[in-house]
């Protein structure tokens, strides 16, 4: 049985490089996609929205209530577009989507505050889009501790208490994992790589079949593994170009903090890039033509963007979605990238997300090599 040989693998690699070089349009798209997505997700989609419409229901006219309202206003997150004393009307505004929040300050707010009873301020939030409400609510919590510092001097300082003089209660099922640009831009790395890497190799074998070059390739002694790895290797280079592009933009354009080790990120990216390329190759062996291959790639791309924790906070998704998400390489890669860049994770912290990538790669490669037919039968 003839075994794997390096010279045949190398022949495929060089050939793929030349073809990539000739196909300017595809290469342009490979570079253009990360740039376009950076523009779309990084700039256009503002995930730290401010001036959100809010309704005020203030039953207390005391100075403390006024201070609190003023503080909320200057936080920039709230635009108080309605004032009402009617609870039903407030509910209606929320339901219609006219306001994102209703802020309820109770009648005995000042009295309770002065007695040190931590009056409850109820914030009702329309959490349909948790990404929209999250930052605002976070700001409220930050503000709670300090808002009355000036108003409660001297002996009243004891009222400041360690958890703040006011109890902000949020009525909304909302996700604590708030998405910011810092989260989105590193996340884009996984999304861009999934999209481009899968599509580019999904076409790799169907293209040979459609153009008729497969017949020639099959008539040579080249082995399935050599063809598949030979087609994967050149695109790893492209994947790294994309990674670098996003990192440069993340740093210089979006000021994303890079706490962890970049070399570590580069090394583990290899696993993710290879996994996606292998998925593409596998699609390519399953698809009858290039159109089918692209459709399969898209089919894979959708859950990778929707269920990976990129679009929606992962823990906010229903169990089934989390289960699907856990099988996708992008889910694990997102955690790795965010972990390394934002949290400064080292190898031991990201290791739990590495082996799923490895398992995925091995499975995809195995299916690809097994499905690669060596005859025209």
């Amino acid at each position, binding site marked *: 049985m003839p075994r794997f040989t390096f010279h*045949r693998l190398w*022949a495929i690699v*060089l050939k793929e490089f030349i073809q990539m070089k000739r196909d300017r349009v595809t290469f342009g798209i490979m570079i253009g996609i990360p740039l376009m997505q950076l523009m779309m997700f990084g700039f256009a989609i503002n995930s730290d929205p401010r001036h959100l419409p809010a309704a005020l229901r203030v039953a207390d006219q005391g100075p403390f209530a006024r201070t609190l309202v003023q503080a909320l206003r200057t936080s920039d997150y709230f635009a108080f577009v309605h004032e009402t004393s009617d609870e039903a009307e407030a509910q209606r505004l929320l339901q219609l989507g006219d306001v994102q929040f209703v802020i309820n300050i109770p009648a005995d707010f000042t009295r309770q505050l002065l007695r040190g009873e931590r009056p409850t301020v109820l914030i009702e939030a329309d959490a349909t889009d948790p990404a929209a409400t999250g930052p605002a609510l976070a700001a409220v919590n930050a503000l709670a501790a300090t808002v009355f510092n000036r108003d409660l001097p001297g002996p009243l300082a004891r009222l400041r208490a360690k958890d703040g003089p006011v109890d902000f209660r949020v009525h909304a099922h909302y996700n604590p994992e708030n998405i910011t640009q810092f989260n989105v831009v590193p996340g884009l790395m996984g999304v861009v790589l999934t999209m481009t890497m899968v599509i580019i190799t999904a076409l790799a074998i169907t293209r040979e079949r459609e153009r*008729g070059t497969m*017949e*020639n390739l*099959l*008539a040579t002694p080249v082995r399935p593994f050599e063809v598949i790895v030979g087609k994967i290797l050149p695109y790893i280079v492209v994947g790294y170009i994309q990674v670098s592009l996003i990192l440069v933009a993340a740093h210089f354009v979006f000021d994303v903090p890079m706490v962890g080790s970049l070399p570590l990120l580069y090394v583990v990216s290899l696993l993710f890039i290879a996994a996606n390329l292998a998925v593409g190759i596998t699609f390519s062996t399953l698809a009858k033509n290039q159109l089918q291959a692209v459709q399969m790639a898209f089919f894979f791309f959708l859950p990778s963007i929707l269920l990976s924790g990129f679009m929606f906070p992962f823990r906010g998704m229903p169990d089934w979605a989390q289960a699907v998400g856990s099988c996708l390489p992008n889910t694990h890669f997102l955690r790795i990238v965010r972990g390394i860049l934002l949290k400064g994770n080292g190898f031991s912290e990201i290791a739990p997300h590495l082996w799923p990538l490895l398992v995925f790669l091995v499975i995809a490669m195995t299916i690809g090599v097994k499905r690669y037919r060596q005859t025209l039968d």
Partner: protein
Amino acid sequence: MSPPAAATPTDLAIDVTGVTKRFGEKTVVNAIDLAVRRGEIYGFLGPNGSGKTTFIRMLCGLLTPDAGTGTCLGYDVRSQQAEIKRHVGYMTQKFSYYEDLSIRENLDFIARIYAVPDRRAAVQRSLDRLGLANRSHQIAGQLSGGWKQRLALAACLIHEPKLLLLDEPTAGVDPKARREFWDEIHQLAADGLTVLITTHYMDEAERCHRLAYLAYGHLLTRGTLAEVLAAAKLTTWSITGPDLRTLATTLRDRAGVEQVVAFGNTLHVSGRDAARLTATIAAVRDPRHDWKQITSGLEDVFISLMDEAKDNFA
């Protein structure tokens, strides 16, 4: 390249029996036996869809036969396909090198795949030999039919195969290029290469050492040109004179007349049943015409074979 140690000592490059291929219900290649001697140019003829390409693909391991056994260069066609691939050069019917690679890049690619020793020199030699040297940087997709065919031939020769399988290599190539191509094939055969070639051109068929004719997946005849002509037992008359068009109409559908073919100033009338043909001719004979019995041409023989096959297999 490993020595053909596994090859059984034989003077046959191809030696197969009962080779059969079915696609679904349809038997495309039906129990074909074929023996091709080393160093021979073997012509494979037959109408479109007769199974020539399918048969060749089975020889070089691209398709698995449903039945049949045999060897190609001494290697078993069923189990030693990898060995066969290393020593066979296969030129596909449709150009199947990379259209977005240049001539040289295509040759480099194939040479690398076969681990040709001293690749650079081998590629250069092959460029020179087929007159491709000063076009080596041209993109294959932009070449005309004749140049594509040269590239394909160069590419399937680069690993110095012992057997060439050429599937309609000269389709769509001008006469001069065809002539040069055949000169090249004869040179290669003289150097010891075995060539199996499919074609629709009669002049090319006549340049083969031996021939086989395939129709509906059945091998109908084979042998040297003389043997094929003799075996056909076809009688042909050549007629010259005035108003051949009317004569042709008269002759068609008469007993014993199988083919009536008009050439410029002559009419060829052929049939397998010599007695009935002669009788028919005697009935319609007109003194203004000049009648002459001639030896049947290869084309007449093949058309006759195909008509016969249509009755039997279609």
